[in-house]
């Protein structure tokens, strides 16, 4: 999601809410005998508000499962997830009075910090990487299709070399095929680890009749290279979710148990 000028109302709302709760907390902290803590009325209010925002944050996952339901625009949900999510950290810190204390509350606080930090990292990556992807991977395909497309590219290259209809010496054909097997095929099989073939030198080493075929092979290699780059960028774009989502769920589960136990005791 690109964070642009259209986010300004959310930014203003978040900053305003942050200032309001900070002022409320400061007054409460100064006036409470024994200092601020989760068990007071104000402390509980911060805690309830923080957990409510967390639940809303978690609902984004549910919203994605039912995209056709009329639950508001996906963009609005995403913006709410991003900007309200930032508020959970001050809300919960104010709830706890900036103390980690018991094992459960300490783990909850650590989880919250990691979840918010990973979310912010994700927001930064999702702001910058899509543009990079568009610019550096013009031959982009659907991520899940990459293995399938790559297999087709390999087949296309093999077919191109096998059915080469060029009037040339038999030795030249053999040499061309040998060059393909030595430098192009390994790259197509493992573009992440093998060295890119140097087509300029291949052109110099082969007769001109082979150059159109070499151009096609180069085009296939360029697409392969881009798909490899797309895969790498996609991992950057989504790998943070491996931290963010599981820990968010753990946070919601443990937070719920903490809320029940805290209200009970």
């Amino acid at each position, binding site marked *: 999601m690109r964070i642009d000028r259209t986010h300004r109302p959310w930014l203003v709302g978040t900053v305003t809410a942050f200032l309001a709760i900070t002022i409320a907390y400061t007054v409460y902290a100064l*006036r*409470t*005998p*024994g*200092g601020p*803590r*989760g*068990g007071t009325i104000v402390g509980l209010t911060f805690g309830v508000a923080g957990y409510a925002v967390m639940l809303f944050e978690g609902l984004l996952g549910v919203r994605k499962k039912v995209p056709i339901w009329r639950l508001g625009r996906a963009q609005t949900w995403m913006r709410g997830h991003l900007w309200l999510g930032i508020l959970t950290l001050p809300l919960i810190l104010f709830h706890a009075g900036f*103390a980690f*204390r*018991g*094992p*459960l*509350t300490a783990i909850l606080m650590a989880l919250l910090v990691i979840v918010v930090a990973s979310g912010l990292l994700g927001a930064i990556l999702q702001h910058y990487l899509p543009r990079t992807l568009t610019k550096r991977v013009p*031959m982009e*395909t*659907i*991520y*899940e*299709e990459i293995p*399938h*497309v790559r297999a*087709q590219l390999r087949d296309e290259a093999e077919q191109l070399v096998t059915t080469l*209809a060029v009037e040339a010496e038999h030795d030249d054909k053999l040499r061309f095929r040998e060059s393909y097997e030595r430098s192009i095929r390994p790259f197509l099989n493992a573009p992440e680890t093998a060295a890119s073939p140097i087509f300029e030198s291949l052109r110099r080493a082969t007769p001109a009749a082979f150059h*159109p*075929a070499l*151009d*096609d092979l180069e*085009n*296939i290699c360029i*697409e392969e290279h881009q798909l490899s780059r797309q895969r790498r960028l996609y*991992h950057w774009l*989504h*790998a943070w*979710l*491996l931290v963010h*989502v*599981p*820990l968010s*769920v*753990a946070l919601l*589960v*443990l937070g719920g*148990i*903490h809320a029940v*136990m*805290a*209200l*009970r*005791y």
Partner: protein
Amino acid sequence: MAGRTRTTKKLAQRIDLHYFKRMYPIPRWKRLLTILAAGLSVAWLGWASLTGKQSAFNAGPLAKGHTILTNNCSSCHVAADFGTKITETACLSCHDAPIHQAKQSFTPACTTCHIEHQGAFQLAATSEASCTQCHGNLTAHIASFNSGHPDFAAVRPGHAPDPGTIKLSHQVHLKSDLKGPNGPVQLVCANCHGVSAAAPTYAEHCASCHPLVFDSKFSEPAPHQDTKTVHDFVVKNQANIAQSIEAAERLLWQKTCKECHTLTYPAPGERPEIPKSAITVRWMTHSEFDHNAHQLVACTECHAQAKTSNRTEDVLLPGIATCQKCHNGSKYSAEVRCSECHLYHDRTKMKPALSVHAIADFAR
């Protein structure tokens, strides 16, 4: 050769239309890790519940004195209509908490001032706000112990002198080479004052250097008791010497007793009256001072006047400025909260607690 082309049709044709039915690495790992994280969370707390490790749910470490209750939440959290709550009964079953004073405007709940689950600090050390919720008017002129707090009443300008009646020069007693029972001595404060707040007594602290031997003809010193007993002692021992009772007594009163006491005679020829020593044991009646906690400082660092004081009337209590040198509110200073010196509960009214707990409640 026509050359390779990437038309929309060609691109569309190479798409596997069933791709969305398969799970790819990142979504698969995301799902697995999510299930694992949720499972571990529930398993941890479930295990803690089953094995009675209530500390897992603890809202924070208990104060040092309550550490033993860590795995027995119900010691303090008593069942109520909804869930549990901390009742006054739970606190009072182990601690008697006498009231502050008869005219107190309200009695706060124990947990208003004594905040638990905040770590191993002293639970009795309450915050300033605990005091100012009633004594809010103090904050108008007392910002802190170091700002606006008046000096101690006993040393304020115009204060009353020491009411003690014993003629004592601290300066003389701190001189070197004083005449002791076994040769020259150098007295230190603790020789007379010890580290307790009790007043020095003649028998324990004075007699060894100041025996009541007023006449070498008497084989033993006079008793340090009321004048009637002393008179009887003189009468009893006078039979052995050629001296009148009046002469012996005159020597005793005028030479020996008068060295420390101020004598008054109700009528000529009668026995003198000796006023009570009236040694002030506690100068600061509205606060507590623990000499034991201050032993790392030499006595004369605070009671500097003792080295030069020649009069009983001198009040040797240090002023607040002396305290503020250490209790100054800086990061590494000694404590400055109200509760450090001023007690809330009137301990003179304290009753023994009537606990209902068994050892088994805590031995987990």
